[in-house]
């Protein structure tokens, strides 16, 4: 089999809401898959393999919901496997599907999944169970308190204020007004964020993403097939991923390889990704990013680790408007994870939104003249990271004849 370039040729996502009681889980996945296949102008028979994107199933209560969804995805008789790296699942699933096509073993691959977090009455209780049962379950540890610790450390290192985090939320909700599928959206003020109920310092309720239900899918194809199907596909020109230790205490201090306040794993993942894509200066060569930000504290360290600004500089740039739609780098034109978080497909949504920017199909969210867009995903105890570059043409080492 001949190695080949890979591109996104179709995307689909359902509206994301608190509950989707009108659909069963397989029906929800099917809705997104149909949208993606229609967008790609392919029929189910043209799909050679499926990668299923689904994180913990504990939220929705069916252990192998991917296998339940086989018939809804017209997957019977085809290769299908499920990828699960916690919150990074969608990013990892995309990269797994990329390998299917890049290897030359498959021409057209569907990535699909869905989540319905609110099926469980207490998602944060479930998220307490991700930690070690002997050492950590008994602490009040969940994804909110875990990332609050990292946010405190970031504030300590760089002097960030709660107001600066609040501005991230205001911008996200404003951007989401242009996104018909976003879960939370609206014109709110910094004061509204600061006045929302305290959850875990420095987080107030509005600093935290919602629990969303909905589905997402995209279709990948070989470069040759992509050019037949779409005049402007989104080529995957770089992929990077890093896993770190589960233990946050091992990610701080003088002997740590990375600092958990800085999400410094992304430096390594981005370096790998950019090297493949031939990107030397992300700030000059990347026009927009869709980054994984379930908390208001996630944007600054990510933008710094991805090379868009120096350490500690993102908060001032944010204050100046650099990350708004008409700023130097529009960040999360979709509203991002702060506005929509169906965990099993959130990383996939990031890639979908980045691909749409490259394909010129982002509608009211469109950033002008996007040639390169970055999508990230993060999972586990902020320990799994993926970075994917989507581009208007094959670039760097991903150019394959």
């Amino acid at each position, binding site marked *: 089999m001949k*190695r080949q370039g890979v591109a996104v040729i179709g995307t689909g996502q359902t509206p994301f809401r608190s509950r989707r009681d009108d659909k069963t889980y397989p029906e929800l996945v099917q809705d997104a898959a149909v949208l993606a296949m229609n967008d790609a102008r392919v029929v189910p028979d043209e799909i050679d393999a499926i990668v299923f994107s689904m994180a913990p199933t504990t939220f929705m209560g069916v252990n192998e919901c991917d296998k339940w969804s086989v018939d809804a995805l017209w997957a019977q008789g085809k290769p299908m496997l499920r990828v699960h*790296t916690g919150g990074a699942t969608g990013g990892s699933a995309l990269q797994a599907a990329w390998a299917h096509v890049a*290897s030359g073993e498959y021409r057209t691959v569907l990535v699909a999944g869905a989540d319905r977090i609110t099926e469980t009455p207490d998602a944060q209780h479930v998220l307490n169970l991700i930690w070690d049962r002997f050492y950590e379950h008994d602490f009040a540890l969940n994804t909110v308190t875990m990332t609050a610790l990292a946010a405190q450390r970031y504030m300590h290192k760089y002097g960030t204020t709660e107001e600066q985090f609040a501005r991230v939320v205001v911008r996200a909700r404003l951007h989401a007004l242009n996104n018909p599928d976003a879960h939370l959206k609206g014109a709110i003020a910094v004061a509204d964020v600061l006045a929302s109920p305290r959850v875990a310092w420095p987080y107030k309720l509005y600093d935290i993403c919602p629990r969303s239900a909905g589905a997402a899918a995209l279709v990948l194809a070989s470069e040759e097939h992509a050019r037949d199907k779409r005049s402007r596909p989104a080529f995957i020109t770089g992929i990077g991923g890093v896993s770190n230790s589960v233990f946050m205490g091992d990610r701080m201090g003088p002997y740590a390889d990375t600092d958990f306040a800085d999400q410094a794993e992304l430096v390594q993942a981005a370096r*790998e990704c950019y090297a493949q894509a031939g990107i030397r200066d992300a700030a000059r060569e990347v026009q927009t990013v869709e980054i994984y930000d379930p908390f208001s504290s996630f944007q600054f360290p990510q933008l710094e680790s991805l090379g868009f600004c120096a350490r500690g500089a993102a908060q001032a740039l944010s204050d100046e408007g650099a990350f708004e739609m008409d700023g130097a780098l529009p960040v999360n034109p979709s509203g991002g994870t702060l506005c929509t978080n169906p965990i099993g497909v959130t990383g996939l949504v990031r890639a979908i939104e980045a691909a749409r920017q490259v394909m010129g199909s982002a509608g009211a969210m469109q950033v002008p003249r996007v040639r390169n867009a970055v999508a990230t995903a993060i999972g586990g105890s902020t320990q799994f990271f993926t970075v994917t570059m989507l581009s208007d043409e094959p670039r760097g080492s991903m150019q394959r004849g």
Partner: protein
Amino acid sequence: MDVYVLGLAVHPSADAIRDARLEEIAYRTCRAALDDAGVTRAQLDHVTLAACDELDGRAISSMLMAAPSGAYLKDELRVTDSGLSGLQMGALRIASGRFHLGLVASWNQSSIGPFEDIGRMRADPFHTRPIGMNFGIADGLFASAVAARYGFTDDAASERVALRARTAQRNPRAVRRAVPEAAAVRGSSFVANPLREAHRAPLTDGAAAFVLASPEWLAAHPDTTPRARITGAYWAIDRYQLGGERLAGLELVRRCYDEALRRAGVARDAVQVVELEAQNAYCDLAYTDALELGGATTVSPSGGAWAQNPYFCTGLVNVAEAVWQVAGQAGAVQVPGARCAVAHGSHGYAQQGHGFVVLEKMP
């Protein structure tokens, strides 16, 4: 496909591994695989894990398992279908040209989990969960369907158990057990008619790990001798609904086997060994017939799941046995002259998914 097995390890088999946490089981196995390959963790450019949250008893199993499995600050991703799926994913990552040296790891400490309760939670909440579906009942439906269509009898199933258990006791890597007589198997209680308790392969604890390399990596390390070459892999999924044709048709397992061989460019009669994952005797009978195995092809010389059956990664253990066969290192169960061996794995209710990996002897 052109991917090489540099080294591998299978954790010493046991009904229950009592002296180690799951993290330690994975660490021991991955460490042994790296040593077997003669490479260091620092040389790896990626890791592929295969694990099931529910069987591991953790909501995101890889959070605690990634680092002991060698993935600390590596590009790691995880699949959840089976250990064999992990190897297939790892091989695809190498075949993409992006990665050149990787570790694949999978495990299952079957002894600590409520196996059938986990199986029941796999059922959809509307149709199959209310009737109490679990692994045993799904396998009973399968047994009933293939027995009706192909005439497999209780006697034949019981004889097959005795055969596999006898074979397994020749395998130096098998759990040591008394070999049951067919009559004793026939006398065991029903799980779900016609499937009896003793028709099922006993669950064990275990883990397996592989070091895979690209042709480019091998060219840059000419002193390295791989154990085997992966030339083909294919897998597919069947319908969720357990209808009669889905259970007895066996079309999927047949097509997967043929497609894996086609992709490898290997003729059926060139296969000397097939290591089947048969979770019970009816699976063994059905797959052997469906794939028209026998004659020059030795089926499950390791004893298959009756040698060891760490449920989630039994298919990956099959790959290890197949590698050892083509490397001439299978010990007392070596098939003379084995040059091509195929490993099979399955997963899901009544084996909803099947996968095959084709391994060939290094020139």
